[in-house]
């Protein structure tokens, strides 16, 4: 049996700090709920039945292991390092988010909770949470920024079909960070019967560690699959970083393999020169801060107020970054680069045409980074790119960005 839970030298200390980052900066009214969660999680982690149940769900419900696919055409086209794609888009519900939703759903059930609360940006995490809620029989409330409700309409529809309630968040910037706050406030009001199913490796302790642990299956599989295919470890891992769950998921199993280099692709939006145009927190404008319960780097002004962000992908359009990433950045273990919207669209089209795969716009950031890196490396090097999700959900944005007139006509006809 696979060992799902393991330690690395970058883990949080017993108080939930990754170096100087992380832990729990929340109102006292949430401390009892976080204590309860930490205890329940520690107990579940050391219970072999929990681990077995989760591995079963990964396999039979979500369809794991997801393939590690050698992208031969893309590799030849770029003419450098070998590119492998870890296709998390082939999970049930279409993205890696289902991994931590199954883990947390199982945990919520053990804890006897009745309702799941979640925030969502792209809608993928909301969709995965609503799915798990339907499967386990929880009520479910999904908070989503009003801007994201509009740009990710298909997911809103599906979430509602699964029986969950979508609450558009109309305050602040009406995006992911405001959805996180609305979800936290719901939890503050209902700490005893609700479970806050956080959708990324951020928030107060123990979430960053717990979400990472439930996502670590991705890297564990990659290790096994690549050893079988190539007999060695990768030279590079590349993943997009919003809050950081898919990235830490593929990185974690390799953090102590010092020869494996890692790159996190942040949302460069319209360019990282001006705050407000992007969501690249580690490219020089991010400040150390404490927001939404954790200490990390945030895009804030000189007073500490959160600044608006921009990205073509709703899932990366977020002003904070998970605390373990802040540490990996500070320690120099992982490099973080920004990828612009236009590079993302180019990468999206390239992967579609060369390999017949639509990556999610979030994941397209990682693809774009790989297209820059691969040609600079020799052919015996190996890059593994995490395709965190599939691009079907992005049909409206991509069609719009590419200016497809037939699609526009179709929408008009449908609207009538």
């Amino acid at each position: 049996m696979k060992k799902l839970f393991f330690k690395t030298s970058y883990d949080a200390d017993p108080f939930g700090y990754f170096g100087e980052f992380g832990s729990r900066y929340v109102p006292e009214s949430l401390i009892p709920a976080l204590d309860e969660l930490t205890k329940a999680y520690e107990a579940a982690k050391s219970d072999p039945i929990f681990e077995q149940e989760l591995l079963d769900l990964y396999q039979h419900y979500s369809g794991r292991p997801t393939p590690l696919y050698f992208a031969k055409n893309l590799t030849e086209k770029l003419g450098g390092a070998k590119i492998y794609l870890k296709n998390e888009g082939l999970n049930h519900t279409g993205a890696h988010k289902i991994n931590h939703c199954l883990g947390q759903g199982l945990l919520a059930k053990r804890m006897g909770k009745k309702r799941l609360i979640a925030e969502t940006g792209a809608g993928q995490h909301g969709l995965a949470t609503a799915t798990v809620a339907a499967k386990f029989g929880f009520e479910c409330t999904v908070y989503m920024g009003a801007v994201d409700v509009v740009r990710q309409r298909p997911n809103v529809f599906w979430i509602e079909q699964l029986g969950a309630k979508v609450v558009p968040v109309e305050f602040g910037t009406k995006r992911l960070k405001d959805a996180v706050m609305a979800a936290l406030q719901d939890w503050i009001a209902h700490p005893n019967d609700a479970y806050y199913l956080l959708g990324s490796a951020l928030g107060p302790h123990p979430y960053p560690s717990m979400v990472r642990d439930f996502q670590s299956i991705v890297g564990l599989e990659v290790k096994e699959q690549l050893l079988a295919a190539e007999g060695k470890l990768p030279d590079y891992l590349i993943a997009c970083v919003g809050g950081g769950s898919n990235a830490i998921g593929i990185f974690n199993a390799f953090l102590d393999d010092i020869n494996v280099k890692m790159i996190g692709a942040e949302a460069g939006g319209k360019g990282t020169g001006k705050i407000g145009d992007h969501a690249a927190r580690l490219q020089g404008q991010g400040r150390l801060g404490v927001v939404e319960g954790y200490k990390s780097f945030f895009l804030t002004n000189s007073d500490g107020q959160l600044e608006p962000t921009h990205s073509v992908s709703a899932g990366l359009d977020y002003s904070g970054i998970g605390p373990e990433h802040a540490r990996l950045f500070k320690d120099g273990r992982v490099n973080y680069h920004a990828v612009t919207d236009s590079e993302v669209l180019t990468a999206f089209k390239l992967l579609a045409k060369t390999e017949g795969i639509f990556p999610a716009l979030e994941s397209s950031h990682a693809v774009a980074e790989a297209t820059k890196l691969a040609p600079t490396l020799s052919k015996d090097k190996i890059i593994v790119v995490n395709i965190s999700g599939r691009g079907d959900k992005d049909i409206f944005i991509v069609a719009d960005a590419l200016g497809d007139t037939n699609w526009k006509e179709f929408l008009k006809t449908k609207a009538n």
Partner: protein
Amino acid sequence: MHPLEKQFEKIKKENRLGLMTHVVVGYPNLETTRELVKTMSESGADYIELQIPFSDPVGDGPTIREANTAALENGVCVHDAFILADRLTHEDAIATSLLFMTYFNIVLTYGIEKFCHDAGKAGIVGLIIPDYPLEAESHEHLESEAEKNNLVLIRFASLDSTEERLKKLGEKAEGFVYCFSTRGTTGVRSDIDGGIQPALALVKKYFQVPAAVGFGISNAEQIRTLKGSADMVVVGSALVKACESGGKEGVRKKMEELVIALK
């Protein structure tokens, strides 16, 4: 004796509940905030919280959250809060103890040492930072910096705090302990959660300092039900609303209603 304590001696002597009120700095504008604080002070507030607006005030419900947003949209910055406190203290010679309430990111970004130092100089006597838990002290040292400047960092207790937790929180607590009257965020509510009485009994067991009850307190009736179990009440959103509908006079009227209920 610390000003917070001294005022509480007075409250005890008068055999009544204490009252802490709340304003959002720069809402509806800075000049009005200054007037509101003076009005509250004249009307019998024992302590006043000056909230430094934050973009993501996680503990606040719609009324105060929107006041935060509006203040920021007005261009209010952190520095304005220090200027306001300084004027209230040194120009207006306000008789009421002033506390800064804000979220930890504001303090951290300003610089913890500098924030405490400048707050002390501006006449602030206490800090209320809802997202700064006890455990953060070993990393951030906000409490010790506050102490150096004669500021009390207020501690919190919730309806769900365990006895073990309350014991830890109660040790070395100063000023008063801020007890959440309900589960949830700030905002006007019409009644009082039944869980508050037993929770307050536990708080009393572990804290030597007075217990202030806040969140959702908006009317005289609620205040009366807290007599005997709480030592102070905190009113925020209801006063923001009073100002929205009736301006300074609206606040004066609301204050009258609240103050009568304290006795």
